[in-house]
Each structure stands twice: as C-alpha cells, then as structure tokens.
C-alpha cells in the first residue's frame, strides 16, 4: 500500500515537473544548453575496469554521433559509486538533486542499482542501467523512466537451461552458486529452461557469499555423479572455482556450464583449467559479424584497449539514448515522447539487433560460448530474441 502511494506520488511529481518544464520554450532549450548526463559508475575497487569500459563505450557512441545527441552537446557529471550500496542513495541524489542531470547512467552492482531506482522512480529522471542484471529492476521495481540496456540474470540462466534440456546426455544436473540474489536468479532461470526438457536437478548446492572454500562441495558433486554441473561465481571466486574443479579431476568427467560471467575476465588467470567450459551470454568473442568487427576496431583505436561485454553495454546505452533524443530534437523535457521513441527503437548493437521489452529489458539473442584459449568463443545461438522472466514481467506494473 505504501509502495503504491509512493509510486503514485512519484508519478504525480514527475508529471508536475514535466509540466513546468514544458512552459519554457522548447526551441530555446533544444538549441541552447547542453544535455546533462550523470555517470554513476564504479571508478575504484574491483569493478573499476567495468565502470571505465561502460563510460568508454558510451563516449564512443557519442563520438560516432558527431559529439551530439539530438543536436545537443552532452555535459558529463561523474560520481564514483564504489559499488557500495550503503552510499548509493546519497550518490544518486547528488546527481539528481544537486546537479539536476537529465539522464542518469548507472550502474554495475545490482544492490547499488536497486537503490538508484528507488530514487529515480521518485524523481522521474531518465535512468539507464548499463549492467546490473538484478531481476526486480525490470520486474517489481520497473518504471517508465527506468531502462536497462544490458541483460537480466534470468536470461542467461534460462538460455543455458534450454541448451542443456536438448542434450541427450544431460539428464541430471547439479547446480552450485553463492547464496545471494544474483546466484539465485541464475539458478532459477536455468531451472525454468532445463526442467521443461524432462531432465532433473540432482542437487542444488549453495555456498555462503563470498566464501570460496569449494572443496567439500566438489566432493559432494563427485559423489552425486550428475551428467553436468551448472555453476555461477564471478571474479576471483570464479577463478578459484574453475581451478578447484579441474584439480579435483572433475573437469574431464562432468561437463561444466554456467552464465557468461563464470568465464569472463578470468581466463588468463585460470589457464588450462577453463578449457571447454560452456557458458551463455548476450555477447561473445569472435562473433564475426561486420557490425561487431567495426565496433571492436573503433573501440581499440579510441581507447587502446580491447572492448568487452561491458563496453558493448555502455555503447548500446549511448545508441539507445541517441535514438530517443533524435525523436524529440534533443528536448529532454518531452520525456514521454523521448521514452516512447526509445521503446520503439531497434538498437543496432555489436551484440546483434535488440529492442526493449514492455518492462524495459532488452529482448535479445543469447549466445552459447565455449572457452578456447583465452577467448569465450561463439559457438551458436542458445535462444533467439529472448524476453525476460515471465514472473518478473508479471510483477512489473508500469501502466
């Protein structure tokens, strides 16, 4: 009840602000001031490289559009969110209330992103999420002004589930992950896709977050002897899991699969232990499309760095915003039309073409990838044009 009242208040406030701004001659706005974009991303800590990749991607999209979106220049305001949920509300308020930005871009960490949404829902500020895959962002917390350009955790979990459900030699699977929101969403997605094929989940194993002592659970897996293991860990935890799994002698006997984040960014550290591991994600190395090659070349030229999935998500955020602003001639006060244009847009992304769902999450192809050397090599489409979790969609009461 309280939630709904707050939501209604938010909508009313948003409408009031929009109304007030409409009173200013739109033409003057369109040709005058710069559009203020607030970047709330991690610039320190473990996720710092992800924050930088997202900003680089966004800037590349701007650069390719001639430095202007909808005919107006962009002024950036930056806040380091430190991937710290406790500071998230203050940080986003700084952008929304002090700097009065027109658009907020953020962020990587799901907990921080959820806190941001609570603020932007109230303020009505256009909010683009360039990474955080937490389900509620385009589920129970969805809002007209909140748009995700990355993925939902459920999507890559589900896609891998569908792939495994078609495999004759994968009739029982053990899942293993950290017990926290993202881990639970990946496993739910996997089960939604996999169980339809008639296979069974032999056991669900959970590790307290962020514990990395896997040995007892690997012993458990060896005792259960499933046909495959579905695992999600990230960063250092993923690297340790992949090594432990190989050292326990399981790698050659029980195939290991997971969402893309299991093998992204850790392959150099893991070496041979990850070879052959299959994952599902909305991007892959060596996609070999013309669009992707162009992007990779341009990115490498501009930043002297190889792009990754995060750079793509930042880039796509820029493309989608550009499409919206073009439709309103750079007049951000026409928010309704701006959002409607973004909803209608098809983003010609390096990952392949995608568009927004009713709940503002990308409807996109999820790829199957296999670790070869230090690459997550593309090996096919796992699911074409995949929408989000039906349960999350049902919880999204946008209109």
């Amino acid at each position, binding site marked *: 009840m309280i939630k709904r009242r707050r939501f209604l208040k938010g909508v009313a406030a948003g409408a009031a602000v929009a109304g007030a701004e409409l009173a200013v001659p739109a033409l003057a706005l369109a040709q005058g001031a710069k559009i203020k974009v607030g970047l709330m991303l991690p610039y320190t800590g473990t996720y710092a490289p992800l924050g930088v990749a997202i900003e680089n991607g966004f800037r590349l999209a701007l650069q390719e559009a001639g430095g202007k979106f909808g005919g107006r220049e962009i002024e950036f305001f930056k806040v380091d969110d430190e991937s710290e949920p406790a500071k998230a509300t203050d940080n986003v308020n700084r952008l929304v209330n002090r700097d009065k930005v027109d658009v907020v871009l953020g962020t990587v960490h799901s907990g921080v992103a959820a806190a941001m949404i609570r603020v932007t829902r109230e303020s009505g500020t256009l909010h683009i999420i360039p990474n955080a895959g937490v389900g509620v962002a385009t589920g129970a917390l969805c809002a007209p002004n909140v748009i995700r350009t990355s993925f939902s955790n459920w999507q890559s979990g589900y896609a891998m589930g569908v792939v495994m459900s078609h495999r004759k030699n994968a009739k029982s699977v053990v899942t293993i992950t950290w*017990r926290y929101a993202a881990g639970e969403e990946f496993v739910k997605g996997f089960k939604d896709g996999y169980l339809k094929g008639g296979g069974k989940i032999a056991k669900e194993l959970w590790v*307290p977050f962020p514990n990395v002592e896997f040995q007892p659970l690997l012993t458990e897996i060896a005792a259960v002897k499933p046909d495959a293991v579905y695992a999600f860990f990230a960063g*250092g935890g993923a690297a340790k899991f992949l090594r432990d799994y190989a050292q326990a002698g399981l790698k050659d006997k029980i195939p290991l699969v997971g969402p893309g984040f299991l093998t992204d960014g850790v392959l150099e550290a893991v070496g041979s232990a990850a070879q052959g591991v299959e994952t599902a994600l909305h991007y892959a190395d060596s996609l070999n499309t013309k669009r992707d090659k162009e992007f990779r070349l341009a990115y490498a030229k501009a930043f002297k760095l190889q792009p990754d999935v995060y750079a793509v998500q930042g880039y796509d955020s820029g493309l989608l915003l550009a499409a919206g602003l073009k439709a309103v001639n750079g007049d951000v006060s026409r928010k309704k039309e701006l959002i409607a244009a973004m909803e209608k847009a098809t983003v010609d992304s390096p990952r392949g073409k995608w568009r927004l769902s009713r709940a503002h999450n990308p409807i996109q192809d999820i790829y199957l990838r296999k670790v070869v050397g230090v690459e997550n090599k593309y090996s096919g489409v796992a699911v074409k044009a995949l929408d989000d979790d039906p349960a999350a969609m049902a919880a999204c009461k946008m209109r």
Partner: protein
Amino acid sequence: MDFHTFLIQLLNGVQYGLLLFLVASGLTLVFGIMGIINVAHGSFYMIGAYLAWWLAGRFDSFWIALPAGIALTAAIGVALETFIIRHLYDRDHLYQVLLTYGLILVFEETRSLLWGDDVRGVQIPEVLSASIRLTETLSYPVYRLWISAVCLMVAGLMYWVLQKTRLGMIIRAGSFNRDMVQSLGINVQLVYRIVFAAGIALAGLAGMIAAPVSAVFPGMGNQVLIICFVVIVIGGMGSVKGAMLASLLIGLADTFGKVIHLEAGGVRLLPELSSMTVYLLMAIVLLWRPEGVFGRRP
C-alpha cells in the same frame, strides 16, 4: 553420505583447518605476546598471494619465489613495527584497530597501483602437480596435501621455538610482564620486532602457498581475516594451542555444515545453516568458556 565420502570430507575439513591455522597463528601470536590487535593481518595474506604471483613470474620458479616472498613480508613487518606499531603498545585497543584498519586501505590501494585489480593465477609447481585418485570421479591434488604438511611443520616449529628455546622463554616472559623482562637487561623491543615480523611472515606464507590452489584477487585478505578472528576467539586470544584446535574445529564445522542438510519430509530446514555453522560453533564455545577454550581467565 557413505563412509568413503565421509572420510574424504574429513580430509577436506582438516586440510582447510590447517591452512586457517597458518594464517590465524600469526594473528594470535601478535595479540597474545604484544597485545596488539592487527586487523590488517588479512592484507598480508593477500600481499603474500600477490608476491607469489609476481615473484614466480619474475624468477620463473615457485621455489625461489617462496623464500623471497617470506623475506619480503618479514621485512615489511620489521618496517611497520619500527615506524608505526611501536607507538601503539601503551594505547587502547581502539587506537590499534583504527590504525591497522587504515593500513588495510593503504595496502589495498598500493596493491591496486602496483599490480592492478585483475584476477591472477599461479601455476602449481611441477613436482606437486599430480593428483591422487580417490574415487571413480574424484581426485585429490597432491599440492593440497603438501599445504597440510607445511602447516603441520610450521605448527611444530612454533611449538619448539616457544616452548623449548631461550628466545621462546623470553617471548613468553615478555607477554606476562614486559617491564620485568626489560629490567632484567633484555631488549624487549627487539623481541617484539621479531615476533611481529614472524606473525606477518606467517600470514604472507599462508597467502603464498594458498595462491596456486586459490586465485589471486583484490580483497581476498578480508574474507580470511573474519574467519581468523573467529579462530582466535574460539581458541582463546593469544593461545597458539587454542588456535590449532579452533582452526581444526572450524575447518570441520564449515565442511560438514556445507554438505549436511537437515531435511524433514523433503523440505530443507534452515537452508542458511551452512553460512551459520561456524558462528554457531563460536556462540556455543563462548557460552561455555567466554575467554575461549585455552584463553587466560581475566
């Protein structure tokens, strides 16, 4: 769980416990003898792991990296004691926590500047890279057994030095009455410096030998730190014997907490139990003996 699996899990628990002991023993040594609470202890675990990665890359050999890394961490320990820690001996524990917490931030940032934020891996040395086949599907890496052997050796060495040597006698005396030892003409300052450097080197050593089975990543010390504090609280602050017992208990509790589930009619009771077992153990021990199993009664 059949008997065979049970034995393997027992091995897992003991092996994890021994590694915990190696990290926690340095922490309890520094606290028990010097009265210093060093919350930056976990950082030296991380520094050890990064040194193993960096030095192994430089020298192309884990066996050269190991002694070099121990020497380096011990040297950092001496420098810290000389310039920073010695000012804390007569201060309240709160000052110690504050200052050593600051050190965590300094070490994390320095690590980020020197070696970046990427996840790194260290190769297992060739001679220890084999695996022993335990069941049809499961093998046990020889390297893990070697870790346990090293931990046992270090524990034996610590016992010998503290109980059987003149230095150990001075160290123990110093922990009871610092002023008296000093007035007998013994350089307590030097003894403290040695103890602190040894404590730091132990954490560094643990990080180094754990690096090849673990991975090397930012913040890896903080996870270890929390569990180390649980170890020394259960074992009794300052007791090396207690740290050994507590490490093994925690290793076993954590291992079996993860794989044993209470089920009733197909419904899992307390699904969060696995993350709580260690802390439940601590709560029970503290109810029974608030000063820890081998702690000194106040």
